[in-house]
């Protein structure tokens, strides 16, 4: 039997960075909905989005056996292949995200074509975000993947990571901290829950993710022998990474911190130490989660 694991960590990086790009883009749209006071956040998010996706794609391309043939995926397609659809989704998304980033930087994103780019981009972002999960879940024989929960897990994880990276970048770039814009934003963030509240967003997303992951594991544990085998394989070979990295670091701790942050509004401000730490944890956890599911899911159930 073929013991070769076809998709290595480069694919995880692609899925992760692609997810970050999707999350960042959606954050930008979200921030835009809250008006000009979040322009800096919007700017950071809009710039990060295409950069992250492109970097992810770069890893993906170099994971190909024939990277030079990458371009052929644009004119050779297979309607039955999720990956083939993904090529178009990602290509479209990259273009839209780049255009949107330029518009945001030029502050033209709310006028003229900007609206179209924004909404089309949003559509593609959701498409790409779901694509990652569907790419895996379309493999009928991969028990860990071939279920409805997986695309949700991946999508929510992507959004979480995207937001986290934007928050982190905003926090670590000193220029931002000191600008008037940041000050205004920080103030806005610190206001009552009626405005954009990072902690609340995180809490909702983390709760959804935790629930979905739990439901997913429960289904696996009580599923057919194929599911049980693969879950056991995951826990046996990646148990620590999974429980500690993906669940505790990536979901439980951030949830606790976010709830804490929500209650003590000051500390929950974008840029505060706690939000920064939370962002880092979410990023680490998100990466581990995707990597473990990717690696363990590729192991075939013994044929007899």
């Amino acid at each position: 039997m073929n013991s070769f694991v076809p998709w290595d960590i480069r694919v995880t990086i692609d899925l992760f960075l692609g997810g970050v790009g999707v999350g960042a883009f959606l954050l930008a749209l979200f921030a835009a909905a809250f008006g000009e006071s979040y322009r800096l956040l919007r700017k950071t998010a809009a710039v990060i989005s295409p950069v992250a996706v492109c970097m992810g794609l770069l890893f993906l391309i170099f994971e190909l056996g024939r990277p030079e043939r990458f371009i052929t995926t644009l004119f050779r397609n297979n309607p039955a292949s999720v990956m083939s659809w993904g090529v178009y989704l990602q290509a479209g998304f990259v273009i839209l995200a780049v255009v949107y980033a330029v518009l945001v930087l030029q502050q033209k994103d709310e006028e003229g074509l900007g609206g179209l780019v924004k909404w089309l981009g949003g559509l593609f972002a959701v498409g790409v975000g779901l694509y990652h999960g569907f790419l895996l879940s379309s493999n009928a024989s991969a028990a860990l993947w071939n279920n409805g929960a997986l695309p949700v897990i991946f999508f929510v994880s992507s959004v979480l990571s995207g937001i986290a990276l934007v928050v982190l970048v905003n926090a670590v770039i000193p220029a931002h901290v000191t600008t008037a814009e940041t000050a205004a934003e920080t103030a806005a963030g610190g206001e009552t829950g009626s405005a954009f509240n990072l902690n609340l967003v995180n809490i909702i997303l983390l709760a959804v993710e935790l629930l979905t992951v739990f439901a997913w594991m429960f289904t696996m544990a009580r599923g057919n022998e194929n599911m049980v085998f693969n879950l056991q394989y995951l826990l046996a070979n990646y148990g620590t990474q999974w429980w500690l990295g993906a669940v505790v670091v990536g979901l439980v701790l951030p949830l606790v911190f976010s709830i804490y942050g929500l209650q003590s509004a000051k500390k929950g401000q974008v840029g505060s130490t706690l939000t920064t730490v939370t962002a880092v944890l979410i990023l680490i956890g998100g990466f581990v989660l995707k990597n473990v599911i990717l690696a363990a899911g590729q192991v075939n159930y013994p044929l007899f």
Partner: protein
Amino acid sequence: MPNYAMVIDLHKCAGCGACAIACKNENNVPEGIYWANYIHRTRGKFPNVRYEFIPTLCNHCEEAPCVKACPVGAMHKDENGLTLHDPSKCIGCKACVVADPYGVIYFNEEKPHEFWYDKEEAIEKITSSGQEMGKNYDVPFPYYNPDRAKTYAGVRPKGVVEKCTMCDHRIKEGKVPYCVYSCPSGARVFGDLDDPNSEVNKLLNQYSYFRLGENFGTKPKVFYIREF
């Protein structure tokens, strides 16, 4: 158009692996890659032990997950029901390998047949090296089978996947796949599933059969009858 299939009679199978070795020979398959292979298991407790052996190969599934997964149409079904691969289209994304529940698609991670490019000599000047041997012949390695190149790359390049083609180059010439031809115990039968009088249909009518991974919905076209 025929709908090719294979029946493997495990009662006749001697578990010798000649199919897998002959396949490497016929198809110039490099080290570490197996178009034809086998799985085996030992069950029970001494002295009531059962050893079972199942020769495997690409199942040329009717609902081939690898074909569905391939983003560029390199993996495809041909008009005879075979699952074939076009290395000139393949981008090496391995989606097919991931999709394949049988572990029969392999990825050429390294330059194939590296052994024949190696310069090392066991004893200097007295024994040869792969490279020196290779130079003596105008083919990739001395026992290279040129017939393979009639329908597929004679040796598949680095960076693409490869797998069993049911010896489509032989079928075209009216011959059976080489694993069928080479099976010393006559355990393999190849033929047209759509022809009610074909040997494969006769066997499938005579015996109950099973296929590997039937629950995956792939509709494999390699059938196993009787017990090892």
